[in-house]
């Protein structure tokens, strides 16, 4: 557990995620693809950070590495003070379960389970008893605006509602880091906006960081900072999002 006291110089907020010289190669030999080529990058607590860039530049790969769902070849990844590079596989798995919330592009809700059951999964994985897990899940569903829909299965809900169930699932165990891959790509403009407003608010919680991968320019304005990727590297980080506001049409 190093870097626990890493406070960004002059920002007044702690570092949530630090990525140092991370590289990742898929495959080997002729077919090898270097998806990450020594990425250096930081995300702060209390911010919503977007990772943007052209398709194939390595956004999803970087996100997977940060989330601990993908092993990387070189470099260090430190998430809220814990170095993923020094952990065993099962330690990383346990770490993900405790500290990371996931929001997937295609929601990835289990269609045969009710909304409450879907949301309760992270709690159950962490060993919370079913009754308590379901009570907390129901409360979380209400927070994301799904009052009284806990018993519905995903197929009985609209796309926007499904994504809100997914958000509730990502937040129910109060993770420090919330990871979203293209959270709005399956939603219409209005639902996408609502989801991002919610995410923006989520990022405000103390000791939390939300990282969103997207190429949906309509939601760029919800970012506190943007990391622009190009060809396996983070090329630039913008402190403000004015540059991209024009893209929100």
């Amino acid at each position: 557990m190093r870097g626990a006291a890493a406070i960004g110089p002059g920002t007044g907020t702690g570092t949530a995620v630090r990525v140092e010289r991370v590289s990742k190669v898929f495959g080997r030999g002729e077919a090898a693809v270097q998806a990450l080529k020594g990425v250096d990058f930081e995300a702060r607590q209390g911010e919503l950070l977007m990772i943007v860039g052209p398709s194939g530049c390595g956004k999803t790969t970087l996100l997977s590495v940060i989330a601990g769902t993908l092993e990387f070849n070189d470099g260090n990844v430190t998430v809220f003070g814990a170095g993923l590079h020094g952990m065993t596989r099962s330690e990383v798995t346990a770490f993900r379960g405790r500290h990371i919330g996931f929001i997937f592009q295609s929601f990835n809700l289990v269609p045969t389970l009710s909304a409450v059951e879907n949301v309760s999964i992270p709690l159950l994985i962490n060993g919370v008893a079913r009754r308590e897990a379901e009570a907390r899940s129901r409360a979380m569903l209400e927070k994301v605006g799904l009052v009284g829909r806990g018993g519905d299965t995903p197929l009985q809900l609209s796309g926007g509602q499904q994504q809100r169930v997914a958000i509730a699932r990502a937040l129910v165990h109060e993770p420090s880091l919330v990871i979203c891959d293209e959270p709005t790509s399956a939603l219409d403009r209005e639902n996408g906006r609502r989801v991002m407003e919610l995410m923006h608010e989520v990022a405000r919680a103390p000791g939390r960081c939300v990282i969103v991968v997207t190429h949906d320019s309509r939601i760029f304005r919800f970012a506190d900072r943007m990391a622009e990727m190009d060809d396996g590297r983070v090329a630039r980080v913008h402190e403000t999002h004015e540059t991209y506001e024009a893209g929100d049409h």
Partner: protein
Amino acid sequence: MYRIALKMLFADRGKYVMLLSGLTFATLLMTQQAGVFAGILEWTKGNLKNMRAPLWVVDPKVEQVNEVKALRDTDVSRVRSVPGVGWAVPMYWGILQARLADGTFKPVQLVGLDNATMVGRPARMVAGRIEDLRLPNAVVIDELAIQRLSRGRPRPIGVGDLFEINDREARIVGVCRTEMSFFGYPYIFATYDQALQFAPRVRKMLSYILVSPAEGVPLATVAARIEKETGLRAYTEEDFGVSTVRWFFRNTGIPTSFGMTILLGFIVGVAVAGQTFYAFILENLRHFGALKAMGAGDGLLTRMVVLQAFAVGLIGYGIGLGVTVLIGSLFLKKGMPPFSMPWFIPVGTLAAILVICAIAAAFGIRRIRQLEPAIVFRG
């Protein structure tokens, strides 16, 4: 998470029903066929169950109770003279033709009981008295005989009625209850002397010598002495049963054909359940991947899949066994076809079903363990 695992499977109606049918069918096929086969084996021991005696002395070449090599009448006294023998009595057993009132013939198994002691007599009389066998031409028939021999009569044959065995008149003095036997023919009991009157005359007529040891002398000791001193074969009731079953295994295709069917049940189970379960796992791979990403370890996912496989296995087994018991009790009520359910059939089938589930689960688990949690971020 285990509740979630079960719900994932049970709520997937199509797969669940398919899995359940496969396992139910496999269970049914295995237990039902094994039950019929066990029933046949029980039937082969019919003579042993219907004519009880501690020791059965037969020709040394006889390996099973449905096969007779006639002994000399003098063999009875030779056996009696062996030390440790309490009593030894002759018994006749043979298949003869009974003539029905309508003129047709039906095969019957004629049993001749020792005139004085009637050793080997039927255990349960339904009508009449066994002692009346000493009356002229008297026979006791079993209930199966009532069904088989009543043809051409205004009412079912019974005590006081006459019919012909091998052209000789037989008078029914009683009705008894017997267990089904291998040939499936009715039993007709008579005294030994009377049986020899019915049976066609040949040089040797003695089928079995039934023996009991004297008080306090162990069965095995007497059996060994009889074999040593007379050169005949002396089986205990149990040994004769075992030898009979073994003979059927060695000399008939019946066990092979049942074995094939039972194996087929197993293979159908593996194929249907294994494939359906694997399809279920594949279909839910995204969700297992998501669970993995959300922090579910391989251990937890393995236990979830094992639970899913074994839960559906046990339910399928339960339904299959239930249906078999239903069918079996119907068979037993009708007396046909043979059926028996010794404890090792349900236990063995359960083991087979668990093996099927383990195979199905193993493939699924392998797939899930290989799963990179990062797939959840891929389109």
